[in-house]
């Protein structure tokens, strides 16, 4: 029996070190499954890290949850799934807080919730409710700056808002400054890290796009869907092939004619 404290420490570390790779998520998930007798403890560990770490890690943990519940369900450990269902609101609040600081994570949350719903870890009702809340937060975040055309007095606006101006860090955002300000920004390094991680995830995601489900006419349906109406391109292609074919025939006919002449035809 491992020391509960040590298990907790190690799991926390693994959560902190999550990145875009599937292996890191799998490793952490397997660890949690191994010490499933401390499920409650480890679940609180996840919530704790969600609320403490930076936005990138929160996003990574969010993706991890999808993976984790998948594995837990497979292994028949209903505890983890049940606890996550219970606390999902709290998780969403942590990953995409309504102060706007988690705007960049809203899309992550949506994606994961959608996936969880597809895997029937979450009920449709819960998902749609959360979705409503997210929409609100998204909209409020979009009100700011970039999303609206510059005011008529651009130069004026600019001078009143010098480029050097930075917004307060997200965790220092007060309720009074919540609206009307851009959400707290991740620092530059974090942004770049996030970009790379998103690309990595995108890459992994694309690794399976070629797969066709085993259903009977799945491949046919897919091809049918992807086939466009007859158009200019098809005509061009037809003409090119026709020209090629004619050239080929021409080239071959010569030999035949020669033969024919040879035989006195």
């Amino acid at each position, binding site marked *: 029996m491992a020391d509960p404290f040590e298990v907790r420490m190690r799991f926390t570390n693994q959560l902190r070190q999550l990145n875009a790779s599937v292996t890191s998520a799998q490793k952490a998930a397997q660890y949690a499954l191994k010490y499933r007798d401390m499920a409650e403890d480890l679940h609180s560990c996840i919530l704790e890290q969600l609320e403490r770490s930076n936005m990138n890690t929160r996003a990574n943990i969010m993706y991890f949850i999808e993976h984790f519940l998948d594995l837990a369900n497979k292994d028949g450990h209903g505890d983890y799934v049940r606890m996550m269902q219970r606390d999902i609101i709290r998780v969403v609040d942590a990953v995409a807080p309504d102060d706007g600081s988690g705007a960049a994570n809203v899309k992550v949350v949506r994606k994961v919730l959608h996936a969880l719903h597809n895997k029937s870890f979450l009920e449709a009702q819960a998902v749609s409710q959360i979705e409503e809340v997210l929409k609100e937060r998204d909209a409020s975040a979009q009100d700011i700056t970039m999303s609206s055309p*510059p005011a008529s007095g651009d130069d004026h606006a600019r001078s009143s808002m010098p480029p050097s101006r930075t917004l307060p860090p997200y965790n220092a955002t007060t309720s009074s400054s919540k609206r009307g300000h851009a959400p707290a920004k991740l620092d530059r390094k974090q942004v770049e890290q996030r970009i790379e991680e998103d690309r990595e995830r995108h890459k992994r995601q694309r690794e399976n796009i070629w797969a066709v489900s085993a259903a009977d006419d799945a491949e046919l349906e897919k091809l049918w869907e992807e086939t466009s109406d007859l158009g200019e391109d098809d005509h061009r292609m037809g003409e090119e092939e026709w020209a090629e074919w004619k050239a080929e025939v021409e080239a071959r006919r010569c030999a035949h004619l020669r033969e024919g002449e040879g035989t006195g035809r």
Partner: protein
Amino acid sequence: MAARGGYRGGFNPQAQQQQPGYPKGQYDARGYGQASGHGTPVSSFHGSPTAQSPYGGSGRGWNNQPQFSPQGQFSPPYAQNNYGPPTGPQGHYHGGQAHSPPYAPTGPSSQYPTGPYRGGHRGGSFRGHQFNGRGGLRGGFKSTQWNPQGSNGRTGASEDSDLAHATAHQSPGSHVETASEKGDTAMTDSDNPFRPSKELQVEDSSKDEQPKDDKMAPPAPRPPPTGPQSTTPNKFSFSMKNAAKPVVAAPRPEISSKFNAAPASREPPTKNAAPASREPPTKPAAQKAPPTRPERDRGIPRNAPTEPASARPRPGVPTGPSDRRQPEPSRQPDAAPRTRKVKKVVKRLKEKPVLPSDLAASKSVFFRKPGNESVVGSGTYGKVFKGLNVYTKKLVALKKIRMEGERDGFPVTAVREIKLLRSLSHKNIVQLQEVMVEANDCFMVFEYLSHDLTGLLNHPTYTLEPGHKKHLAQQLFEGLDYLHTRGVLHRDIKAANILVSNEGILKLADFGLARFYAKHHQLDYTNRVITIWYRSPELLLGETQYGPAVDIWSAACVLVEIFTKRAIFPGDGSEINQLEKIHAVLGTPNRKDWPNLVEMPWFALLRPDYRKPNVFEEKYKDQVTTAAFDLLASMFYYDPDKRPTAAEVLQHPYFTTEEPPSRQAIELKDIGGEWHELESKALRREKEKKEKEKEKERARAAQVGSKEDGTEGGSGSTSRDNRERKRPNEGGDARREAKRPHI
């Protein structure tokens, strides 16, 4: 005596074969040993050619033979002659001796070296005749060398030769001596045969042409044997040759004994060979071809004897030439008219190119200067070399496919690029000529263009005129339109990837990031494409469902560079800074202009904290014409859906109505040199160096004046500017990785 036969025989086959077949291969191959040699000399070519070459050679050889038919004719005569050896040979010899000395000196040495081809052919023909006379020997030689290949082909000649071969083969060494007697007799007969042969000879002999040929021939190394014979023979040669051939066989012993001294003096190898009698060494030495020696030695003992003999006579000139000469004159008059045809053949031979030594030494079909001299570009994909096709003399660009660090074998990106390029054929798309594997490296072979846009725009003195710029722009969009019509996204449009020929023709290059895209439904692609300065805002904001509009943005950036010589968004290489650069010119985007803005994956991540106005107009309106500005503004829309397609761009008033009309930049021919990004980078580095030195001096001066603070600040800013102007290095790994994920 056999030596002569060997020479001629050796030469002839070579010449014939070579001429018809592959020029390079022929040379080397001949020298080395035709049969075995083919593979070695020009390995790459040889592969296929060798197989062919023998045939071609033989075929041509045949042709020659028919032309030369005299040989065939001769040879039979020889056989006949053989019976009457004594008279013929002697007469030949005598004549030969007297004549030969004078001829020999001039003809042989000079002629041989220069025009192996022509000399060879004519010489060959002549020799052939002569050989034929010697017939057995030559035939044997040829046959031995060629036998494997030629046996089939040479039906006509082969018979005689075969017979000769058979005899020769059986007792090569003895043959020479024994044959010599026969040969002498044959020689006499051969004289008779001359007439039949004369036709051939006459043709060859067409006196004027032949001499010319001989003259031509001199450059060729081989000629020595032929040269002397051919030159003198040309007119005389036929008779001489015929005589010589028979002589060779029969005379060998005599000649060898008589002339041994002479040949020995001229050609030490013959002496050595003398014991061996076949003297393969003599010929080789005389000919210059060390390669030939081995062949001869290896290939045919018979040849060896004949060749040396021939070599000897030539140097000595006593027997062979004299004999030949005598007969020839008589013959020539007879069949002068027919000769012309033969002459034509000779001309073909002449046409064969002689490779300059540096090209001949090239191990590759595409000659590259050693070291880094031939590098015309380099990047994460590897290096691009400038190569010269040693055969066609055409320039090519060799893109070496980087295999280092490829764990999964041949890089799939390269396969994709090749597949894509093979489907493209347009005047504004660089043409992939072939893919070559050489020395364990894989190269993509492209047509070579002297400049790229970066190099051209950074040219220290040359400036494009407005009409030229329009023409370049037009070609750029015609190329893009072609790509997009065919469902290809280039995804790496930038000035350095746009090549310009020295006639002002523009071609899009580097399809390492290109891919086919689905025109009628939106698929998901990686957003890590396009060199970052040329990357469109939607890609910077993480869009993965994009289309040809990304290329239009890049092309617009290039267009600005064509107009102003400066990149419009020279960022520091990070996405954040790149977006800032764009915002600084075009202002910050908003939902009204770009409804999908907030749907961009990284919009929340990268949104600016403040608004910026669009200052594009202030900055660029004065630098370009009205229509050009309008065009640029439309291509720089934030919303990709609002950007015009390449086809629409081509219909813009800038191209259709605004003056001046586009004009091809043919003046590029005159600027000399080659201007690629590589050169301009080097130039820039040079400049920076100088500037730094200036700074140092200034700093020193300033220090003296105790103005340290001011100068430091100044130097700092200038160096920063310099850094900014540098092209972004497509960060090796990052870009490389990017190539993999999207297939």
